[in-house]
């Protein structure tokens, strides 16, 4: 399993959710964050915004869902301009469903 963390534009939040749904991925966690990339925020006239509002999606996906998850986030989040966001991926070693206490992939 893979843990995907995607940081996208807040105005693309609905679109990313929709694309993920179309790909059959309904389970996700999201939160509002502040962040910046290598542009160090944005300069508007005399005012510098050090950080910008973003939405972070956290998804746990199976190996066979991984490629379509990335494609869906890119399709939903892309405008082609700086600030579209980043996707980070980590390996999940174990996962459990609290209700049943069952470890995924063990069946007990």
């Amino acid at each position, binding site marked *: 399993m893979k*843990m995907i963390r995607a940081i996208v534009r807040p105005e693309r939040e609905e679109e990313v959710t929709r694309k993920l749904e179309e790909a059959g991925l309904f*389970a996700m966690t999201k*939160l509002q964050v502040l962040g910046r990339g290598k542009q160090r925020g944005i300069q508007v006239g005399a005012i510098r915004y050090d950080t910008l509002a973003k939405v972070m999606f956290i998804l746990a996906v199976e190996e066979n869902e991984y490629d379509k998850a990335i494609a869906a986030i890119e399709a939903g989040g892309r405008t082609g301009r700086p600030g579209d966001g980043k996707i980070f991926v980590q*390996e*999940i*070693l*174990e*996962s459990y*469903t*609290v209700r049943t206490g069952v470890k995924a992939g063990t069946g007990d």
Partner: protein
Amino acid sequence: MKEVIAIIRPAKHFATRKALEAAGISSYTTFPVLGRSRQRGLRFQSGGEEFVAIKFLPKQYFSIVVTEAKLSAAIAVLIKANQTGDGNVGDGKIFVLDMEDAVRVSTDERGEKAV
């Protein structure tokens, strides 16, 4: 070291804190998030037709960095504290990820000493 990520019911937030404390796990980061699983949020029956009424539900997110020795205890505590026991969905998920290094900012201690 491992990072244990638990996404649980907000109503179980303080019960979870107490249970972790009792198990000797006192350091973690937690914040409110919005989430859903395979059920796609909450569904209500309306006119015989099923539709999604609430797409995302409030959840509490815990990130707990533990040493290998405390990993299984942490998972057991999280499951025990968060099972509502009625077989209802929504009790949450626990994920275990590898944590390569940890640094205590105040003293520059590294690895397990910093956890």
